[in-house]
C-alpha cells in the first residue's frame, strides 16, 4: 500500500508542480501586479484607472457579442446542412472547414486587409465597374468581419459534433409521431444540440473579446479593443501594472459570461471537441 501510494505520488508530482508554478502562480502574480504600483507598493491606482477604459470595454463587448451572434447564425445552419450529407462527404467537408484554421491567423487577416483596403481588391473591382469606392478598413464592420471569419470554424465544429451524435432513430420516431420538419427542429435538433452551441459560443466569444491583432489590422488604428490596450501597456509603455489590472478584469469578465452560459446548458457546458 505504501509502495502504491509512493508510486502514485511520483506520477502526480511532475504535473502538479508544473501546473502549480505555471498555471496557478501566474494568476496570483497578475493580481499582485494589478494591486501594486511600479515600485511594488500596494495601490488601487491601476484599478481606479480602469474607469478611463470603460468605453473600450463597452466596444469590445458589443463587437464580440455581435460577432458571436453572426457566427452562430451562419454556423448553426451550416452544421445542420453538413449532417444532411452522406457520411463520406461529411468527413471531407469537415476537413474543408478546419483547413483554414491551420493557416496562420495573422496572414489570413492581412489578406483580408488586401481585400478591403482603399486600393484593395473590392475597390479595384468597384472602380472598374465605374462604381464609387469605399474605404472599409477602420469601420466596425471590417473588425467584426475579421472576428467572424477567423472564428467561424470554432462555432461549426462543436455544433456539428453534437448534431452528428443525435441518434437517427430519434428523428425517425419524431416523424412517426407526426412532427413536421419545423417541429422536429424545435423539439429535437435544437434542444439536443445546445451543449455544442454553448461550447461554440464560448470558443468564439473568448478569442473575439480578447483579440488585438484583428482590430489592429482591420480597425486601422481607429478601433481599440481591450486586447489592444493590454498590448500597448505591456509591449509599448511597459506599464505592467496597468496591463495586469486590465488582464485581470478581462479574465473576470470572461469567467462571469461563462458562468452565465453554463447555466443555460444545465451544467452540460463541457468542451465538446
Amino acid at each position, binding site marked *: 500500500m505504501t509502495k502504491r501510494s509512493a508510486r502514485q505520488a511520483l506520477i502526480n508530482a511532475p*504535473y502538479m508542480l508544473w501546473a502549480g508554478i505555471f498555471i496557478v502562480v501566474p494568476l496570483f502574480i497578475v493580481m499582485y501586479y494589478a494591486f501594486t504600483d511600479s515600485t511594488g507598493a500596494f495601490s488601487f491606482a491601476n484599478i481606479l484607472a480602469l474607469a478611463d477604459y470603460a468605453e473600450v470595454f463597452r466596444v469590445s463587448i458589443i463587437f464580440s457579442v455581435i460577432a458571436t451572434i453572426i457566427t452562430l447564425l451562419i454556423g448553426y445552419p451550416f452544421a445542420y446542412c453538413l449532417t444532411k450529407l452522406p457520411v463520406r462527404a461529411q468527413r471531407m467537408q469537415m476537413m474543408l472547414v478546419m483547413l483554414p484554421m491551420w493557416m496562420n491567423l495573422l496572414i489570413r487577416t492581412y489578406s483580408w486587409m488586401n481585400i478591403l483596403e482603399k486600393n484593395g481588391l473590392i475597390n479595384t473591382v468597384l472602380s472598374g465597374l465605374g462604381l464609387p469606392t469605399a474605404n472599409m478598413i477602420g469601420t466596425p464592420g471590417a473588425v467584426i468581419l475579421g472576428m467572424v471569419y477567423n472564428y467561424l470554424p470554432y462555432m461549426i465544429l462543436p455544433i456539428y459534433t453534437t448534431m452528428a451524435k443525435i441518434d437517427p432513430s430519434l428523428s425517425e420516431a419524431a416523424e412517426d409521431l407526426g412532427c413536421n420538419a419545423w417541429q422536429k427542429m424545435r423539439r429535437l435538433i435544437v434542444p439536443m444540440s445546445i451543449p455544442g452551441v454553448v461550447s461554440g459560443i464560448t470558443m468564439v466569444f473568448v478569442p473575439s473579446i480578447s483579440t488585438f491583432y484583428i482590430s489592429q489590422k482591420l480597425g486601422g488604428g481607429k478601433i481599440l479593443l481591450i486586447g489592444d490596450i493590454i498590448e500597448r501597456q505591456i509591449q509599448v509603455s511597459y506599464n505592467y501594472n496597468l496591463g495586469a489590472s486590465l488582464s485581470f478584469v478581462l479574465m473576470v469578465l470572461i469567467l462571469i459570461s461563462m458562468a452565465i452560459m453554463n447555466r443555460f446548458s444545465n451544467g452540460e457546458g463541457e468542451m465538446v471537441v
Partner: protein
Amino acid sequence: MRSVRSIFMGLVYMFLYAPIMILVFFSFNAGKSTSVFSGFSLKWYGELFSNGEAMNALGNTLLLAVTSALIATVIGTVAAVGIYNMRSKFLSSTVMSVTNIPMMNPDIVTGVSLMLLFVFVGRLVGAATSLNFVTLLIAHVTFNIPYVILNVLPKLRQTDSRLSEAAQDLGCTPVQAFFKVVLPSIAPGIFAALLMAFTLSLDDFVISYYTNGADFQTLPLMIYSMTKKTVRPDMYALSTLIFVTILILLIVSNILQEKSDKKNRKGIN
C-alpha cells in the same frame, strides 16, 4: 431544399477561402505588392528560400514545436495516468479545474500572466533580461499539456481495467503491466495529442508574443513584425507552401482512415 442548402454551403466556403485564394494568387505576383497584380512569376518562391531570416524563423518554429510537443506529451500522459488513478474525487476535480484554466483563459491573459511571472522571478534574481528560449518553451509546454490530458484521459477510461489486472495476475509488475498493456491501448490518444500539441505550438502567436526573448524569432512573430510595415509576396509564397503541405497531409490521413474503416468493416463481416 437541397439546392438552397448547396448554395448556402457554397457561399460559406467562398467566405472561408476568399483570403486564402487571394494569398495564393498574389504569391505568384511579379510585382512587390500584395494587392496589385502585375504579372505571373515564381520569383517570390525563389526569394523565400534565399531569405535567411525566414528560413531561420521556420527552423526555430519547428524546433520549438517539436520540443514543446514532446515535453508536453510526456508530462501530460503521465498526468492523465495520475488523474485516472486518483482515488479522491476532490483532488481529481481540482486538478481538472486547474487544467481547464489555460483553455478557458484568452491567450492574451495566459501570455501576460506567464510573462509577469518570468519578469517577477527575473527581477528577484536580478537577471538583466528575463525572457528567452526557455521561457518561450515553458509557455508552449504549459498551454499544450491540457490538450494532451484531454486527449489521453478518455482513452484511459475506455481501456478495460481488467486487462491490467490480468497482466498482473500473470506475473507482470504494475509498471510492466502499464507498459505492456495500458500504454499500447492508449497509444492512439497519445499520438493524437502529440500531433495536436505540435500544430498548436506551430501556429501560436499571442502567447509567444509575450513570452519570447529578443534573440529567438518564430515564424508567427516574424510575420507579425512584417505586417506592421508591408508584407512582401514571399510570405504569401510561404503560406501557400504551408497550405499545400497541410492539404496533402489531410488528404493522405483521410485516405488512410477510409482504408482502415473498410478493413474494420470487413473484419466485422
